[in-house]
């Protein structure tokens, strides 16, 4: 950060530039566009019904094509020596080997034989060993505090009786995360090296992140077989893209001097990549690792539906029995895992960036104290565990549970406050949600497509206009328009609500360290606690329907709005604030006229992410009876209709891509106007 004094002058001139008025040309263009839209809307109903509602005869039977293609891929596609299915089955086997190893180590023990006739040759790691190893990792990466945190999280798993399921989940995470990180890193490096390749995979990455998982679950099951392996692969598809993006970005961010230095000392291309670029970018690369961990844990529930078992299955099973407490305990176990893994990975990132002096030649014990301690612990508890069962497996008698506390709590609220909540819900529903839904439903598709294209043109030129226009027209052409509008309505309302709640929280937390720490804990919880856990109590209090869906979407998509706002404000140049103070701004003026304006690009990015998160919740909202694209994907899944699912999933992705591109272009313009770029 620059020192405040010398930048005051420059700062105040930049402040003046920020107040620039928008040109009159823009205004005229907007008036014309809106007029045209109004005319289409008013006349379409009378003269051109094809502009109001997309005609059935123009439909593109994309769903049928996709299904036919899948059938061909599974049954006939061949590379000569082997078929496509052979290839995918081979990949599945590759993933299965480390998974079986991790599972043996953590949960089932080393088995000989298969199925129920298998016998245990070696027991799995004892709970004490796992807690101990995790604590040691913490101690190595971040000192006593991190050791206590990580060990504590794992101890909670044992105390709350979630150990067995948590280890099954951990095993699949331990396989998915390294593959996701390595795969993402390699693809990212390739994209960094060959711009062509990057251009080719960028849309693919967008699709991987935005198509709901349910849409491609059926093809994955067919191609990769049923069970934990398919779950790991579905997790990879969803969790890998951020790693790819962050790799490319952070390699590009490596300082030119370092690259020049590498050239000067005569590095080969390979040395350049692995010895120079990757190590210099490792700090930002760890952000990618962190994202892969978080997103993998996000998939736990869906993975459990296709045979991964573990905590996700416990959550689903408990909530089907309406055991809210049991569901919450399993859900919080996922949060505990996420927090422990996240903090450990952050600890390692810090450790790596402040590298200790090159390894001196000392004794074996002195060089590897942590590894040795871990090995001793594993062996010792393993041996003692053979004689004392309590060392091997946490004694069930010492487990605690919240029992029926949560059920009673919800029941109490339900009996005493249901009428109040119902009145509140009805007010929001009847005055805001329903009218907005109706409004969107009545808009003519042609007008909306045109308006989006116009917006794209204003914000980013004709390429963006083409993209927005073509993608939205494709949604109409595949017969998804009505459901897409309901999707836009639900996600739009929720994103607005999330922004309205999240941005003020971000502002409040940005400069208060203690509050910020609490906000982070809550954010982590909201991001990793399966929404199913709070969805069912919400159904009890608000019935099924759009309002309940909205609660779940807002709770989940709130997090980026908070995080990016706080980050944006924390990054504002101190010199500019100083300049504002020198000009005699009040606190309020400082916030609204300087800080928020400068943080606008970050805040817009936060809103962008809020929309992405909201869209990714669509599948969950289908579970409380909405009628949007999420429901369409879900129906397709239950009918094993690959084509229908993929087409609806693509429509979701298109909405996400249009929103993303328009907002990014808007943020870019804002940045340029303020002279930040």
């Amino acid at each position: 950060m620059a020192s405040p004094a010398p930048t005051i002058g420059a700062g105040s001139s930049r402040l003046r530039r920020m107040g620039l008025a928008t040109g009159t040309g823009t205004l005229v263009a907007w008036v014309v566009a809106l007029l045209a839209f109004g005319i289409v809307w008013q006349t379409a109903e009378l003269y051109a019904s094809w502009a109001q509602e997309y005609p059935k005869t123009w439909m593109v039977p994309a769903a049928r094509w996709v299904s036919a293609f899948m059938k061909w891929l599974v049954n006939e596609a061949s590379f000569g020596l082997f078929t496509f299915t052979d290839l995918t089955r081979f990949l599945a086997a590759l993933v299965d080997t480390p998974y079986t190893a991790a599972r043996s180590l953590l949960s089932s023990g080393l088995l000989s034989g298969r199925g129920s006739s298998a016998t245990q040759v070696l027991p799995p790691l004892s709970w004490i060993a796992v807690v101990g190893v995790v604590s040691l990792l913490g101690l190595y990466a971040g000192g006593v505090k991190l050791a206590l945190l990580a060990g504590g999280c794992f101890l909670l798993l044992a105390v709350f009786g979630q150990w067995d399921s948590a280890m099954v989940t951990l095993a699949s995470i331990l396989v998915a995360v390294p593959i996701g990180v390595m795969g993402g890193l390699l693809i990212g490096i390739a994209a960094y090296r060959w711009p062509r390749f990057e251009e080719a995979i960028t849309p693919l990455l967008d699709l991987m992140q935005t198509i709901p998982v349910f849409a491609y679950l059926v093809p994955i099951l067919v191609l990769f077989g049923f069970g934990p392996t398919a779950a790991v692969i579905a997790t990879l598809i969803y969790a890998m893209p951020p790693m790819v993006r962050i790799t490319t970005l952070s390699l590009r961010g490596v300082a030119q001097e370092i690259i020049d230095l590498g050239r000067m000392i005569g590095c080969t291309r390979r040395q350049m990549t692995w010895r120079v670029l990757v190590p210099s970018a490792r700090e930002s690369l760890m952000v990618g690792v962190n994202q892969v961990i978080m997103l993998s844990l996000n998939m736990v529930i869906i993975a459990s539906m296709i045979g991964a078992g573990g905590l996700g299955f416990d959550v689903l099973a408990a909530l089907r029995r309406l055991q809210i407490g049991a569901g919450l305990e399993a859900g919080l176990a996922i949060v505990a895992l996420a927090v422990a893994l996240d903090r450990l990975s952050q600890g390692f990132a810090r450790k790596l960036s402040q590298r200790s002096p090159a390894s001196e030649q000392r004794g074996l014990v002195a060089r590897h104290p942590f590894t040795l301690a871990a090995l001793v612990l594993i062996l010792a508890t393993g041996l003692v565990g053979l004689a004392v069962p309590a060392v091997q497996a946490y004694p069930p008698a010492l487990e605690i549970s919240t029992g029926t506390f949560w059920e009673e709590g919800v029941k109490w609220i339900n009996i005493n406050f249901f009428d109040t909540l119902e009145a509140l819900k009805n007010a929001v529903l009847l005055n805001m949600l329903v009218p907005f839904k109706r409004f969107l439903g009545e808009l003519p598709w042609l007008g909306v497509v045109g308006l989006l294209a116009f917006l794209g043109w204003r914000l980013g030129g004709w390429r963006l206009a083409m993209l927005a226009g073509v993608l939205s027209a494709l949604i109409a052409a595949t017969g998804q328009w009505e459901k897409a509008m309901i999707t836009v309505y639900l996600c739009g309302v929720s994103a607005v609500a999330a922004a309205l709640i999240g941005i003020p929280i971000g502002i409040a937390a940005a400069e208060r360290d203690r509050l910020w720490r609490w906000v982070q804990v809550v954010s982590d919880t909201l991001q990793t606690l399966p929404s199913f856990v709070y969805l069912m109590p919400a159904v009890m209090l608000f019935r099924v329907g759009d309002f309940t869906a909205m609660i779940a979407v807002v709770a989940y998509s709130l997090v980026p709005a908070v995080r990016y706002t706080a980050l944006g404000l924390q990054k504002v140049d101190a010199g500019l604030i100083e300049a504002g103070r020198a000009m005699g701004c009040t606190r309020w003026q400082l916030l609204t006229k300087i800080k928020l304006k400068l943080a606008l690009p970050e805040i817009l990015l936060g809103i962008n992410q809020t929309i992405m998160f909201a869209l990714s919740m669509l599948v969950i909202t289908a579970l409380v009876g909405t009628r949007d694209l999420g429901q369409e994907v879900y129906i397709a899944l239950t009918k094993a209709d690959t084509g229908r699912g993929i087409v609806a999933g693509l429509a979701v992705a298109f909405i996400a891509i249009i929103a993303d591109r328009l907002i990014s272009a808007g943020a870019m313009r804002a940045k340029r106007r303020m002279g930040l770029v």
Partner: protein
Amino acid sequence: MRSPMPGLRYATAALLLSAGICAAPALAQESSDPIKLTLHDWTGQLITTELMGEVLKKAGYSVEYVQADYLAQFAGLETGDLHVAMEMWETTGRDAMDASTATGKTEVFGPTGMKAKEEWWYPAYMKEKCPGLPNWEALKDEACAEAFSTAETAPKGRYLGGPVTWGGFDDERVEALNLPFEVIHAGTDAALFAELESAYQRQAPILLWIYAPHWAPAKYEGEWVEFPEFTKECYTDPAWGSNPDALYDCGKPFGEIWKVGWVGVKDKWPGAYKAVRAFTVDNSEMGKMITQVDLEGKSVSEVVQAWMAENEARWSEWIKK
């Protein structure tokens, strides 16, 4: 099994004989690979599957339980990654099952003996507000419909139907029988029962889709609405029933719960195939076991072991050679 030396053949026969006495007749020509049974997320299915699994284990088979989604599992059954699914309900899984068996890669292993019942259901305390129940014609009464209404649906009554994916033709039924009700679809059955629990706690009005065997009819006191009984004609011939111009003017079908599986089971584990086909339990037995698990807090394994101990004669019949 063919052995070149007659002496050895006798020895093998003797071995097989003694194995038979030990009630573990793992036959030599059957595969020793584990048979994979699918587990879903409702208790009844967990019990049925574990019962079958335990019986197969007694017969000497290796068994593996795999958690899988009710409908997504067909992908696995068709490729032979999964082998046996113990509960496929006529009422909710029929379409998916037919689509799958049509590929020739899965087959129906016969009925489980349990009958799926699905119908409109209300808690007993609603009878005061709507005295004509359980007869469906009581629902036609406006005061009665209003008793079931909410702000969104008033003056019409609110009926909470199952997830859209269950089908069930409730929108059509309301239309055909001219009931002053609006059908709201729950997204999952967890949501369905969450609403019931909520209403029951407040003794508030609710009318919803419930199915059995399930713990809900045991936990909550209430009754099924009695519609004109389902017949095939009702769903195919408009002339049938009280409304001469519409289909679906009757109750919901009352159907079998089927066992389905991979078509290769027959050849790979012929004995197990016979056992799965022979497996039957009935509704009241299953209802009792579900109640023990969901309401009395016993574990599935405990309940299954108790059943095995009580019904040894029955299940040993299934695995008899």
